[in-house]
């Protein structure tokens, strides 16, 4: 059983004024692929390092497989890790690099050979086993790092932005390979990244972090479709979620939000916001250009043909609104269009707390 429990972990770096992690708690099931996602400085790497034992928490507890490991030295935790810089030992051949974790634990040479060859085969490194890392490309070195990590029978696999040093094409192809590899192995994985596309693609669950706290944790689809706050909505998705501010008016069952000239209906569950400010969140791909004359009227500011789709930056009552339209769509800057915002795709946010407001009837 390699269930991981992080319980109220606090860490402040010496000389730092704010907490790098602020009482973070997280449960990761056995075999789950958990992604820690967030901008730089959000605490995700700190969390990973504490999990690995490379940093010690100031407070809180870490439990792996039912055993407390909060202060345990890294080498006793039976983990493996892929570093952002790969950390492939330059003075060892690829074979010895991959077999490192086995060698230091005293595994017999014959078994090391068997396992290393298996891992090398999985990662297409077999022709390179006899080479030194200096003679390999960045992508190949990265594979060595991954091979080294999977060849040991670790309880948990940790990855610290392993794809961020690869070029865009390699990143894409290796991402798919990685997903298949890890799922075939079935090992509990904690993966740190700032790239939201990676997070959505790879994770069984995504924990979005900001300023040392987990803001939302859930399945990628869930986190994408129902962002818990404006930050998550803005961080996930490319282009990010749109936010329109307005004042709620009307009464009882006929609530509407006024964007400064144009209005849209508001679910009656938000009656408490009558007379107050409210924010509407909607993803660009959820907004459609309407042929008829309903919805919101906008003026096109920028038209970007992206190949697979078209990105429009429009102006609605002085506020920007991005719309993803089909690739065949055409519009000129200055053109006026009608936009339809489906109510089921609208998310409502409190402008002060920035949190999602429940709008279910």
């Amino acid at each position, binding site marked *: 059983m390699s269930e991981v429990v992080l319980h109220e972990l606090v860490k402040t770096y010496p000389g730092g004024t704010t907490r790098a992690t602020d009482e973070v708690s997280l449960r990761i099931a056995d075999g789950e692929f958990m992604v820690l996602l967030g901008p730089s400085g959000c605490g995700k790497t700190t969390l990973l390092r504490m999990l690995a034992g490379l940093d010690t928490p100031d407070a809180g507890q870490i439990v792996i497989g039912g055993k407390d490991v909060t*202060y*345990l*030295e890294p080498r006793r935790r039976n983990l493996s890790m892929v570093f952002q810089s790969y950390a492939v030992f330059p003075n060892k051949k690829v074979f010895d690099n991959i077999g490192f974790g086995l060698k230091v634990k005293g595994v017999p040479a014959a078994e090391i050979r068997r396992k290393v060859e298996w891992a090398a085969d999985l990662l297409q490194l077999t022709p390179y086993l006899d080479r030194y890392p200096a003679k390999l490309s960045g992508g190949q070195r990265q594979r060595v790092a991954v091979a080294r990590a999977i060849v040991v029978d670790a309880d948990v696999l940790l990855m610290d932005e392993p794809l961020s040093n690869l070029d865009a094409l390699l990143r894409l192809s290796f991402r798919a390979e990685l997903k298949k590899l890890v799922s075939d192995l079935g090992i509990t994985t904690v993966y740190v990244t700032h790239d939201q596309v990676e997070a959505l693609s790879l994770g069984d669950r995504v924990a979005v972090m900001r300023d040392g706290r987990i803001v939302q944790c859930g399945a990628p689809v869930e986190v994408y479709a129902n962002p818990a706050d404006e930050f998550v909505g803005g961080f996930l998705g490319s282009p990010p979620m749109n936010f329109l501010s307005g004042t709620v008016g009307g009464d009882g069952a006929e609530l509407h939000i006024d964007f400064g000239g144009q209005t849209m209906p508001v679910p009656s569950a938000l009656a408490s916001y009558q007379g107050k400010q409210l924010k509407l969140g909607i993803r660009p791909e959820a907004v459609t250009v309407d042929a008829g004359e309903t919805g919101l009227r906008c003026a096109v500011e920028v038209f970007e043909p992206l190949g697979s789709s078209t990105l429009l930056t429009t102006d609605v009552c002085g506020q920007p609104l991005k719309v993803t339209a089909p690739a065949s769509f055409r519009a000129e800057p200055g053109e006026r269009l009608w936009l339809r915002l489906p109510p089921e795709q609208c998310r409502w946010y409190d402008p002060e707390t920035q949190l999602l407001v429940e709008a279910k009837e």
Partner: protein
Amino acid sequence: MTTTLPEIDRRPLRRRQWRRAGVQVACIVITLFMALPIVLIGLTAVSSSAAFAEFPRPFIPSGFSGETLTSFIEATGTIPALGNSLLVGVYTVVLSLLVGAPAGYALARYAFRGKDTYQVFMLLARALPIVVLSVPLATMFLDAGVYDTVFAVTLLHTTLAMPTTVLISASVFVSVPTDLEEAARVFGCGRFEAARRVVFPLAAPGLAAASIFTFVLSWNEIFGAAVITLGHRTLPAQVLASLGEAPQAYRFAGGFALILPALVFILVMRRYLVNMWGTTLR
């Protein structure tokens, strides 16, 4: 579904504490080894002559006296010698940087035939005992009319310091990324200006490290200076000369007086000592 968490295992923390204690003990042992002799000779230098003659000599002298030390310092020639040492030291640093740093830069930035030969040759310059070096030099200096001058000693010391200066500055320049220089050149700086504005500020700590070694080398160099000077001695040469027939107590006082500047100098400069590969002490 919350399961109760197991108790926090604090044994690793205790292990860590034991390890840290062990490290501290080891450090203290080594520090005692390094510091004790200096303390001892310091105490000897300030012992009264009666205390000095005692056997077994107690750790803390039974009588203190500044006599030997002051008489040593006031001996003729000591103060001017101090001045000479300072001058020679500074000049040597400047000259060896002027001649050696560009060579180090060349080693760092260029690959060329004869590079290995050059480096070995440089290293070997340090391998020739100074006795053999200084005698022909003395003759040369006599002929050139610069015998017994600060300039002569500077030349000798620069020769001795050249290998370390070149090699250290080579490694310092290697650690300065070429992109910065190239960026400066793209923005319109000439070759030399790019080096001046971009490379030297970054290389400065490392070059400071090289300068420290050079200065110390020059300051402590005795025998060469003794050979090529007569009236304008550097401090160690002066000490050597006056030490010949002196009683033991006087010699210890002299030894201690030689160490004092070292203590102060390292205190001030220790931060830069590890800059030679272009890094700083983290």
